[in-house]
């Protein structure tokens, strides 16, 4: 195993002039640097998207508030949704996948390093295009104007008639461009996992994170492409005078909904499967046990991937579909709870009887387990079409999917940050500040999203910029907004902790968690070539085998 690194003649790397260092970052094709670029880029957009959310919540803190105009409110929810999904969640998960997969499978880089760089810069350019709309949206004729059609941009709002100026065009083009980047990265991940594994690492011996990212990449290829096609059609409508979504010429607004959600629902699994992947790496290490039911975990993930492709129209129950279509999508949506439930039981069984260490990554993962369960349960409630007719497009739905995305995905992401920060930076984070971040964010999350269910049940629709007093919504909206400030404080502690630890943290060493996967066998941060000698593995926990030659895993697998 490659525990020592080769001394390169470039010992004075850090003393190079700043311009030269920046030039290296811009021209890099190294998967680790691109991974970090993805992550930093996504963190920047996380701040943008968070500010937009905060603006919305301040506007809704009390009835008849005048913090922003209705027009600005529309732009805020559109930009918040688009930013968080396409320019925070996807890039941050791609960043971790980029950084970790080659290290975990014992490879020196991704399969296509230059495609990797190309994909990152496409994504980055897409984000710039979206935010350029703030100044360029109205062209030369007026003030700045960001897209205001909602993140799923239903027709006919997006037609030239109802969407003047260029704001919708910026929205289309930014998603088109970043979509090409996503597809490129997904193909790269698939090829890396299938073609670059080190000797001995059969598919059944890959770490679960690698398996889950393989499924995620497959979903990206099959789900983001339909969005690309739909955006092309929208461009044809807007620029060439086509009629795809033009109801006056016989076109259909509903088919846009289908095309969007054929992308939109698998996208949820694109985001949540990597979150499962983080949990599947962190929970075993901090329970000091091997993952429970590895083959079942893999099977359940593949199952989620397949079923996830056939549930999209549960977003459309309120649109009015035939009863047979409703029945199909009710049943498929309920069915997907089964493999997801299997996963939750497997994580619980992994924790069960383990020597649990409640370090910050583990705290986030335990919270994830409970919160994701609740998110799944409200999901099953909404999957029943009659229930959805009552609560579709209400704040109950907003609370449900933020429970998935914040309570599920963002919590494991924070866990992943703390878990792999020592590997990426070479330094330990501060545990006290980590725990402070956890508790602030945990309290803020529950204040905001637990109580958001209630105005939804009481009939508060989504996307309204204000409301009348005396409907019983006031106090709940106040609590929801107060929670936002706790979350913002938590994120500030998080960013402060990362910055402080990057310069002042203790030196981490190559394996601070006594973990078992290959990335911990090389130095922290890893050298450019990752491994001095390409490792050979015999089991799912190669480092365990190395540390315990008297009782290696491969005797039992």
């Amino acid at each position: 195993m490659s525990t020592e690194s080769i001394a390169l003649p470039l010992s004075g790397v850090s003393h190079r002039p700043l311009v030269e260092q920046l030039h290296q970052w811009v021209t890099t094709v190294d998967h680790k640097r691109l991974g970090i670029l993805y992550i930093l880029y996504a963190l920047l957009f996380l701040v943008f998207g968070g500010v937009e959310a905060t603006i919305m919540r301040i506007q809704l803190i009390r009835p008849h508030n005048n913090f922003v105009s209705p027009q600005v409110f529309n732009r805020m929810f559109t930009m918040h949704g688009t930013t968080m999904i396409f320019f925070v969640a996807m890039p941050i998960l791609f960043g971790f996948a980029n950084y970790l997969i080659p290290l975990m499978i014992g490879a020196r880089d991704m399969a296509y390093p230059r495609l990797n760089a190309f994909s990152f810069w496409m994504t980055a350019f897409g984000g710039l295009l979206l935010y350029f709309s703030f100044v360029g949206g109205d062209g030369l004729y007026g003030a700045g104007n960001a897209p205001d059609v909602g993140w799923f941009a239903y027709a006919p709002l997006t037609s030239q008639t109802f969407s003047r100026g260029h704001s919708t065009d910026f929205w289309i083009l930014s998603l088109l461009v970043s979509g090409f980047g996503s597809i490129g990265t997904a193909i790269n991940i698939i090829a890396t996992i299938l073609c670059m594994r080190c000797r001995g690492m059969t598919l059944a011996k890959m770490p679960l994170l690698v398996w889950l990212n393989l499924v995620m990449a497959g979903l990206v290829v099959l789900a983001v492409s339909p969005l690309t096609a739909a955006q092309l059609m929208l461009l044809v409508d807007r620029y060439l005078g086509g009629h795809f979504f033009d109801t006056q010429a016989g076109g259909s607004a509903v088919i846009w909904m289908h095309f969007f959600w054929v992308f939109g629902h698998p996208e949820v699994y694109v985001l949540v499967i990597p979150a499962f992947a983080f949990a599947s790496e962190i929970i075993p290490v901090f329970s000091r046990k091997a993952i429970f039911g590895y083959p079942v975990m893999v099977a359940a993930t593949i199952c989620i991937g397949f079923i996830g492709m056939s549930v999209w129209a549960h977003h459309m129950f309120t649109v009015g579909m035939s009863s047979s279509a409703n029945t199909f999508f009710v049943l498929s949506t309920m069915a997907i709870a089964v493999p997801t439930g299997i996963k939750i039981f497997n994580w619980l069984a992994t924790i069960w009887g383990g020597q649990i260490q409640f370090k910050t990554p583990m705290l986030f993962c335990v919270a994830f387990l409970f919160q994701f369960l609740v998110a799944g349960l409200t999901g099953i409630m909404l999957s029943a079409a009659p229930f959805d007719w009552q609560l579709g497009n209400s704040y109950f739905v907003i609370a449900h999917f933020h429970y998935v995305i914040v309570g599920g995905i963002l919590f494991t992401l924070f866990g992943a940050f703390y878990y792999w920060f020592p590997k990426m930076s070479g330094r330990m984070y501060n545990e006290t500040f980590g725990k402070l971040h956890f508790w602030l964010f945990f309290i803020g999350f529950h204040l905001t999203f637990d109580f958001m269910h209630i105005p939804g049940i009481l009939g508060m629709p989504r996307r309204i910029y204000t409301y009348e007093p005396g409907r019983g919504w006031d106090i709940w909206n106040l609590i929801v907004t107060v929670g936002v400030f706790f979350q913002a404080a938590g994120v500030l502690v998080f960013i402060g902790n990362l910055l402080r630890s990057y310069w002042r943290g203790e030196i981490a060493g190559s394996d601070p968690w006594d973990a078992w996967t290959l990335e911990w066998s090389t130095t922290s941060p890893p050298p450019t070539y990752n491994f001095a000698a390409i490792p050979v593995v015999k089991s799912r926990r190669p480092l365990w085998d190395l540390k315990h030659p008297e009782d290696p895993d491969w005797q039992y697998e």
Partner: protein
Amino acid sequence: MSAPAITIPEGDIRWNLPARGPVGMYGLIAAEAAIFTIFVVAYIFYIGKSVTGPQPRDVLHVPIFLTVCLLSSSLTIHFALKFLRNGKVRSFAFWWLLTIALGAVFLAGTVREWRHLIYDEGLTIQTNLFGTTYYSLVGLHAFHVTVGLLALATVLLFTFFGDVGQQHTERVEVLSMYWHFVDVVWVVVFTVVYIVGR
């Protein structure tokens, strides 16, 4: 465990992983297939829904000759690769050139068809739903043919400079996978547009 530990000498692990090129191309083909699926679904969904004329049966003629050209180019590229694999670069160049010629004939035929539709029949992308979906789907395919032809022409250029040899077979094969995919898509587009939709 009572059984003694069995150590596997490292050299004994048989280790064959698939090559990167074909895997990546299969990924691209999957993504492209998903894009085409959406356009085909839109075409089928809108068959007969145009509120004004012209309708497909009034203006479309089945392009049998062009279809034969494009489909046989899959055969010629297959022969070309066979020669390259055996190191016969001159024969490879001939069959490769023939592939490009067949693709170019197809593209020229599309140009003629569109010219006829636009100037003689008055069907543009703005005319009705048929025009929108027809030009989008057939145009998307023609765009892929164009990209394929540019790539094929690049290889031909390198061949003329003597830079393509037997050792490049695997790379050229990856490109031929793309070309086969473009042909298969045409089978679907042809069936949907000229048979089902007419």
